[in-house]
């Protein structure tokens, strides 16, 4: 299975929604504390001797914490940069004209970026300045700012079935569900007693959302009855950094954690842990499942490696 070594510590990996062999990796130098960042666009090749080819690499002045592919253009990327800027890249343009836009509105580090898969014209960025901002590609400034959290917003994710609904997970231990048509959040509840680091909607059931937190657990909720979780999944040894629902299997979700493992869970089953991969030798902070290829997943971590493998196989196998 292909492994790619990045020069900096990996932070996020995302498969392209257009090409099944393409993925983007966001990396930051010095673990993202202080230093530069680099955005890699990689292509998987069937050639076993050179499994990855780097289509493009863009350097930034500060670390990149997250990347998101555009749903409207196959070569566009949105990068969430640690200096508070949001940068747009176009791989079809030469590197000298990249980034095509640098949007500077957040006052703290931008932690996540998510592109609207339904409307395809807008994207969200969430930041440590407690806000979530809504942008479109054509405007140089944000359309809306959602400021209700009282601490860093670690993740903002669009609902895959409702074009105007999104959820935000924050360090103030709450999860908020928003509707862009509403002036304020429509729902707020505390899924964990500690900071909620990530959230993701189920791709098949539009009211189900998974959250994961510093308390090492992953909880799956139905927003209609949010007092009690549908499922609680323990098993990680440390804080869970990212959670992603599978686009192919209704009940499957994948998580990565500071215990250096990537785990796959089935939350409808009593013994939820399906498989555990411990290929990383440092914090595993980014994970993604491909929409185009069933079972294909990628992960990256602070050990500067990006693995791409098929679910059920060993990521380190050649």
């Amino acid at each position, binding site marked *: 299975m292909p492994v790619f070594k990045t020069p900096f510590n990996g932070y996020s990996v995302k498969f392209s929604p257009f090409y099944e062999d393409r993925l983007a990796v966001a990396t930051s130098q010095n673990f993202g504390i202080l230093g530069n960042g680099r955005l890699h666009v990689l292509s998987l090749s069937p050639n076993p001797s050179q499994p990855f080819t780097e289509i493009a690499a863009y350097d930034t002045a500060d670390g990149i914490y997250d990347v998101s592919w555009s749903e409207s253009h196959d070569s566009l990327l949105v990068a969430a940069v640690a200096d508070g800027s949001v940068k747009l890249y176009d791989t079809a343009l030469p590197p000298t004209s990249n980034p095509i836009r640098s949007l500077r509105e957040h006052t703290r580090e931008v932690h996540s970026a998510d592109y609207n898969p339904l409307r395809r014209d807008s994207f969200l960025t969430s930041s440590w300045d407690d806000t979530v901002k809504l942008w479109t590609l054509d405007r140089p*400034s944000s359309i809306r700012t959602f400021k209700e959290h009282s601490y860093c917003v670690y993740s903002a994710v669009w609902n895959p079935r409702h074009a105007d609904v999104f959820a935000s997970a924050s360090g*103030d231990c709450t999860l908020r569900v928003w509707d862009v048509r509403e002036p304020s959040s429509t729902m707020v509840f505390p899924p964990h007693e500690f900071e909620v680091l990530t959230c993701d909607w189920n791709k098949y059931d*539009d009211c189900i959302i998974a959250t994961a937190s510093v308390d090492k657990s992953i909880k799956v909720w139905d927003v209609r009855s949010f007092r009690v979780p549908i499922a609680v999944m323990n098993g990680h040894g440390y804080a869970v950094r990212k959670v992603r629902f599978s686009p192919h299997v209704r009940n499957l979700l994948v998580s990565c954690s500071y215990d250096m493992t990537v785990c796959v869970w089935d939350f409808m089953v009593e013994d939820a842990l399906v498989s555990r991969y411990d290929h990383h030798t440092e914090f595993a902070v980014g994970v993604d499942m491909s929409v185009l290829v069933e079972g294909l997943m990628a992960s990256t971590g602070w050990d500067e490696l990006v693995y791409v493998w098929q679910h059920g196989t060993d990521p380190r196998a050649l």
Partner: protein
Amino acid sequence: MSTNSPPQNQGAESAQPAANVDQQGATATEEPVKQSSSPSVFVNSEPMREEQVQNAVKFLSHPRVKGSPVMYRRSFLEKKGLTKEEIDEAFRRVPDSAPTVQTGGVSQDGQVKSSSNIQQQAQPQALQPGLPASTGVNTSSATLSRSRFHWSHALIAIGVLAASGAGTAIVAKNSILPRLKSWIRKVVVEDDEELKKVDRKPTLVEEAAQAAKSAAAAAADVAKASQDMLISKEEERKHFVEVVSLLDKQVQEMKSMTNALRRMEGQDLRITQTNTKQLLVNGNGKADYDLHSVRSTSPPVSYEPPSSLNPKSYMEIMNMVQRGEKPSNTRSWEVGQVQNSSTQVLQAQGSGEYLNSMAQDSTQSNGDGDDALPWWQKKNARIREIDNENEYNGNGSSYGAASYQPPPQRTWVPPQPPPIAMAEAAEAIRRPKPAAQKDQTSDTQSVGNSSDVSDEVTRIPRRSESEGVVEGGSTSSIPSSVEIQEDQELKQE
């Protein structure tokens, strides 16, 4: 769809009974219909819980809470699981708290954000965006007009002050200052004379006191040193006595053996004697080695990773950043900000490397660590013990390849320091008397100690070494490190 919130709430409330039924009945057929019309699924459809609201009211009425920012109060209530409606209701019931629903608003950059801020301060609840925006604009213009007057007033005032200041400065220079200076000179002269007289007396007294103190200290040191010398001499004597007794025993054994041999065979005494001599030598060597076994090693050179090494661990980089250094591998074109809140994000509970570096840092920070020292040495000690045993078992044939200090001659005890652990064990097993002595000395020394208990605790194993060192020191040339150690001990105490 620009719907105002009050009608929205009514719509949601009307959907509540249906939603409640859904929660109980769990039929999702009605949901899709509602979703197409209004996103009521993503709205909290529970009725307000009165108990929660009352708890919130108590919380908000607490005097301490009233001093805290409103954001924190809201955030606290949200963390407790209250819904928006419940929180708003609680704020409504507690009259003087400023309930703010912080609206996103239709914002286009900073202007409307500031107006929304003004809006928050002025009026509670989300209202139609038109009116508050206009009032905000009006108030801002009024303040601007007032401020213009303030600026001109300020300029005039500054000019007047400057002129008056200049005038007073001139006056002072010409008339007041010379008078002051002459007065001050007189006073200073008088003071100096007084001080000189006064100083002479106290300096004499002080000097005498200091001399006395130093003399006393010196006397105390001398007394201590002489005491230690006496103690060490006594212990050496005791060692001698025991060695002699051991030798006597061995001699007796030899005699008995030789007698037995004579009786049995009456053969060459020389052969037997040489054998026994070898045994003696071995035995002596061993005894001597044990005697000199208690010597502490010099602490290992503490290893600090050079800062230019790549790759560095997370903790090293954090430390560098906190010290203000920049990691060397960054290229700066727009200087990035230090993310000192990364610790908040990463509730780091350790990767492998991170934990190891933490451990390293902690041991290094203990400074030639008390922790690092014995642990490291204990390990080596065990290895040495085994090696030495092997050597002896091999009848002295193997001049241990594994030994760390190649001993040139068997009989002569190597001056190199052996392990602490062995020393303690040896001491404990062989000598109860020195243990008693140790207690005495440790008592006398601990009286002099004014420092913490922890120091004493860590000191005790060291004291045992020093005692042992002193014991062993008499039988062979004392290496200087021992004395230095002792001196250090004394100084530290």
